[in-house]
C-alpha cells in the first residue's frame, strides 16, 4: 500500500482566534480566520429571522409591500406652496400646544436643549416673561406636549414649535398631502439648540414680523404662476453640487435664494428689509434644511400603514431616545437611548459637553439623502476626520440595508446611480449595519446652543424591538 495521500484540508475558523493560531503552529495548512460577531443580533432575532426564511409566502408579501413603499416615496413631488403661522395650518395646534422633535416625551424627561427651547418658546409666545415663570407654567400642566411627527411636522434639533411661529407649507403634489417645518433661525445661539436668551427671542420675533410677511408675499407671487417651488428638483440638483442636504445645504440654499430673488425684487421692498433678509438667508448655509425636511416628511407620511412593509418611514430623536416607525406597523414608535455623535466641536467645547443625538432631521436619511447621499458630499467627511473615500463607503454601506434606489436623487460619481432608499429593518438585522446619520451637536445644558457637528449610527436595539413586533404581527 502506498503512502497515505491526504486530501487537502481547507480550513476556516469561525470564532476564537486561538484555534487559527494553533493550526498555524502545526503545519502548513490552508486556513483563514472569519471575521465574525453577532452583529447586534440577539438569539431571538436569529430565531425570528430563521422563522421568516422558512415562510416564503410572507417573504413575498414583504417584498411586494416594500416595493410599493419606495415607489411611493420616490414618486412623491414635494412643492413649497406657502408659509403661515403654525396655529393656522398645523393640525391640532393651539396657543398652549408645544411640539417637539423625536418620539413623544414628557417635559420632566426632556434633555437640556429641549427644555431650554420649550422655555424659550413660552417666552416668545408671551405666555411667560422669564424662564422661571415658563417653568412654573409647564409644571402646572397647562401646556400640551406632543411629537412634531404626529402633526405632519418635523423639527430640526429640539424641534420646538409653538403656535405663532411661521412654518413652511410643503405639498406632495402626487398624493395631495401636506407637511410643515419652522423657518431656520441660523447658526450659533438659537432656539432649536436650546438657547433662549433675549437675543434669541428677539430674532424669532424678527422672523415672525419682518421675514414671514415678505416670504409670504413671495410665495404668493410664485404660486400665482405655478404650483410652487419644486423642492425635489432643487435637492436633486444640490446633490450634484456637493450637498447631501442634511448637514451640508450650501448649494441648495443658494439655489433656493436664486428661485426667490426675482420675486423679492418685484416686491419693491424697503432697502434695509431687503438687505437684512438677503444677508440672513445667504449667511445661513442651513436655511434650506427646514424646507428640505418637510419635503421629506410629506414624501414619507404617505407610506404609513402599508401592510407587510418592513421599511421605516420615520427616524427621529428627542435627545434622550432615538425612535423609528415602520410602514407596516403604523404609528408605533420603537425607541432606544440616543447615541453620542462622533464629530468636530467648536473651539472650547468637547465631547462630554455634547447632548445625545437630537432632532427630526433624520427624516432626510429616510428618503435617501443626508448621510445616505454622502458620496455626493465628500466635503462633509471632515466632520469625522475622514477622507473623501469614506464618503463613498458610507453610501455603499447603506445600499446593503435599503430596498432600492431613489429615482431622482442621483450620485454623479456612481455613474448617476440613485441614492439608497428605503431602510429595511430586516436587512439592518441581517447585516448588522444600522443607518448612518449626519447631525449637528447641541450643548447638553439649555441656553448654550450648537457646539459641533458629526456623524453616528442609529441604535440597533430599536430595530430589534421593531422586528420582534413585526414578526408578531405578520407571522
Amino acid at each position, binding site marked *: 500500500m502506498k503512502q497515505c495521500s491526504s486530501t487537502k484540508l481547507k480550513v476556516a*475558523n*469561525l470564532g476564537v482566534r486561538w484555534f487559527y493560531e494553533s493550526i498555524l*503552529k502545526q503545519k502548513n495548512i490552508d486556513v483563514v480566520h472569519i471575521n465574525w460577531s453577532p452583529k447586534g443580533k440577539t438569539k431571538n432575532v436569529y430565531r425570528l429571522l430563521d422563522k421568516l426564511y422558512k415562510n416564503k409566502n410572507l417573504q413575498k408579501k414583504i417584498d411586494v409591500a416594500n416595493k410599493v413603499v419606495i415607489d411611493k416615496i420616490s414618486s412623491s413631488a414635494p412643492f413649497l406652496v406657502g408659509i403661515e403661522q403654525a396655529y393656522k395650518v398645523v393640525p391640532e395646534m393651539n396657543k398652549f400646544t408645544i411640539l417637539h422633535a423625536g418620539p413623544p416625551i414628557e417635559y420632566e424627561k426632556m434633555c437640556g436643549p429641549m427644555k431650554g427651547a420649550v422655555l424659550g418658546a413660552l417666552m416668545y409666545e408671551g405666555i411667560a416673561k422669564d424662564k422661571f415663570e415658563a417653568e412654573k407654567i409647564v409644571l402646572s400642566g397647562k401646556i400640551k406636549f406632543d411629537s412634531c411627527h404626529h402633526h405632519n411636522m418635523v423639527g430640526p434639533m429640539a424641534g420646538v414649535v409653538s403656535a405663532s411661529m411661521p412654518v413652511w407649507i410643503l405639498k406632495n403634489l402626487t398624493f395631495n398631502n401636506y407637511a410643515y417645518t419652522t423657518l431656520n433661525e441660523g447658526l450659533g445661539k438659537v432656539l432649536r439648540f436650546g438657547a433662549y436668551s433675549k437675543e434669541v427671542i428677539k430674532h424669532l420675533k424678527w422672523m415672525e414680523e419682518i421675514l414671514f410677511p415678505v416670504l409670504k408675499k413671495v410665495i404668493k407671487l410664485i404660486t400665482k404662476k405655478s404650483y410652487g417651488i419644486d423642492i425635489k428638483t432643487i435637492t436633486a440638483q444640490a446633490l450634484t453640487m456637493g450637498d447631501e442636504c442634511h448637514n451640508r445645504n450650501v448649494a441648495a440654499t443658494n439655489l433656493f435664494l436664486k428661485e426667490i430673488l426675482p420675486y423679492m425684487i418685484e416686491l419693491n421692498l424697503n432697502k434695509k428689509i431687503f438687505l437684512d433678509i438677503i444677508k440672513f438667508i445667504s449667511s445661513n448655509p442651513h436655511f434650506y434644511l427646514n424646507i428640505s425636511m418637510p419635503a421629506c416628511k410629506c414624501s414619507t407620511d404617505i407610506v404609513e400603514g402599508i401592510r407587510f412593509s418592513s421599511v421605516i418611514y420615520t427616524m427621529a430623536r428627542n435627545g434622550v431616545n432615538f425612535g423609528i416607525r415602520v410602514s407596516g406597523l403604523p404609528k408605533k414608535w420603537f425607541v432606544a437611548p440616543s447615541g453620542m455623535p462622533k464629530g468636530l466641536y467648536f473651539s472650547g467645547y468637547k465631547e462630554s459637553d455634547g447632548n445625545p443625538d437630537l432632532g427630526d432631521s433624520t427624516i432626510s436619511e429616510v428618503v435617501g439623502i443626508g448621510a445616505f447621499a454622502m458620496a455626493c458630499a465628500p466635503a462633509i467627511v471632515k466632520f469625522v476626520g475622514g477622507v473623501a473615500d469614506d464618503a463613498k463607503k458610507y453610501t455603499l454601506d447603506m445600499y446593503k440595508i435599503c430596498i432600492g434606489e431613489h429615482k431622482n436623487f442621483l450620485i454623479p460619481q456612481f455613474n448617476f446611480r440613485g441614492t439608497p432608499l428605503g431602510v429595511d429593518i430586516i436587512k439592518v438585522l441581517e447585516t448588522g449595519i444600522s443607518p448612518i446619520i449626519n447631525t449637528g451637536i447641541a450643548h447638553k445644558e439649555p441656553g448654550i446652543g450648537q457646539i459641533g457637528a458629526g456623524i453616528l449610527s442609529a441604535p440597533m436595539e430599536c430595530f430589534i424591538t421593531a422586528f420582534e413586533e413585526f414578526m408578531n404581527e405578520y407571522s
Partner: protein
Amino acid sequence: MKNIIKPNCFYDSILLMQIASVLSKQYSSEVTLMMGTDANKSLLRERKMLTSDGEKASVNDLIICFDKNVDEKKVFDTIETFSKSSSNQKQDLIVEDKIPQNTNLILVSIPGEFVFYEVKKIIEEFVSQGESVLGHKLCIFIFSDNVSIEEEKELKLSALKKNILIMGPDCGTAVVNGLGLGFSNNIRTIFDNNNISKQGIGIISAGGTGLQAIMTMIHNFGYTISQAIGTGSRDLSEEVGGITFLESIKYLEKDPYTKTIILFSKPPSEKVVKKITEYISKNCRKMYVLNLLGLNKKQEVKNIFFAQTMQEAVVKAIKVINPKFEIRNKITVSTSFWVNKLKKTNRKYVRGLFSGGSLCEETAIVLKKYIGDVYSNIPIEKNHKLPNPWKSFKNTIIDLGDDIFTRGKPHPMIDFTFRKERMIEESKDKEVAIIIFDLVLGWGSNIEPIKEIRDTIKLSIKNSNSQILFCAIIVGTEKDVQNYANIERQLKKLGVMTFNSNVTMSEFVGKILQDLG
C-alpha cells in the same frame, strides 16, 4: 460591584480571558470581561456581578466587572493595546468576511447561543466545491458548548442530508488528516511524512480528554492513529441517537488506512448503543473496541469487543494489529511502602483533582472496585453526588472541567487557579492519604504546567508533613510542546509519582486504600 460598558465592539472569549487576567493583576482584584449576550448576562446575574448598567448592555457591548472604582479610560486603553498587540504579533493572520467556497473543514467556537443559526446557515448555503474530508463534503468542528440538545439534533440531521459531518457541539478534541483540532496532542498518524506504518487505529470519541488519553496511549505504545474523530459529548444520548458515531463508523469502515476502531463515550443511552452495535455487527467487517463508561459488561459479539477502561480498549485495539502485544510497565512500585507509612497516621481517603471529565469518571469506576463509594460532582451513581462540589467528602474525585467551575473561566487545562486552591485545601485535611491529579499536555493546554503548579505541590506536601502521597497521570507525548519526559522528570523531582495510564494509577491508589481498610 461596578460595571463598565464598552459599546459597539466584539472580542472573542479567549482574548477576553487573557485581558481579564492582565487587568486582574494590574488592579490586584478579580476583573471579569464578557460580551453582553443573554447567556453571559444571566451568568453574571447569578454571580451577582451585573449592575443596572450591565443589564442595559447588548450583544455588541463589552461588560467589564470590577469590585473597585477604576479609571474607565485606562481600562479601555489596556483592552485596546492588548487586542492590538495580539493581532500585530500574528501578521500572517488571513481574515475573511465570508467562508471561502472550497472550504472543507470549519472550526466553530462562537458563543453557544449563536451556534445553531450560524451553523444552520452554513449548512443551508453550502455548495460542495472542494475535496472531501472523512468521507464528507464538509466537516464542521463545533467547540462551543451551551447549544441545546434539540438544536444539536436538528443540526446533525440537516447536515446529514447534505453529506456534512458535524463534530460537536461541545467537541474538545479531534485529529483530522493529521491535523490536531482544539485541545489536542502531537501524535503519530498515517499522514506523517516519514511514517512507515501502513495502517492505524481509528478513534471515535464523545469525550475530549478521553480521546486525548486514548490517542496519546496508542502513540506512547508506539502505534499509529489514522483519524481521531470527536462527536460532541451527547452524540450517544437518546435524543441525538449517535448520528455522528454512525457517520464516522461508515467512513472508517471503508477507509483503507484504518485497521481497527475504538469507540469511546461517557455514559451513553443503552438504546443507542444497541443501535450502534447492531449496525456494526450487520454491516462491518473490521474490529471495533467499545469503551463506554458506565455501561454494564456486554457479551462480546462477532467483531465487537467491550472494554471497561480506556487502557483496556487501547490494548485490545493494538492486539488487532499486533496479536503479541502486551503491556510491560504494570505497577513496579510496591504499594506496601505507602500502606505501612499511612497506617501510622489517621489518613485514609483519596482526593482526585481532574481537568478531564473522562479521566475523572474512569478513575471513579476503577476505584469503586477497591473501595466502594466514591463521591464526585459527576458521580457514576446518583447517590454519590457531592452536595457541595466545593467541599470534598470521604473519597472524592472532582472534575474541575465541570460547568460550575468553568463558566466564564478558562478551562482548568489552561488555568490552574481552582486546582491550586483545592489542592492546598485538601492537603490541610488530616484524613487525606492520597491526592491524585492529571496533567494534560498538548495544543491548548497550559504551556508551562510545572511552573504553574510547582509551589502549590511543595506547599501541599509541607502542609501534610510529607505524609500524603501525590500521584499524577500525564496525558501527552514526547512531541508535545510541553514534552512528556520533561514533565515526568520534574514531577518526580517534586516527589510526585507519575503514571502514563490512568487505570494503572487508579489501581495503584485503589490497592493502597483497600489495604488501609
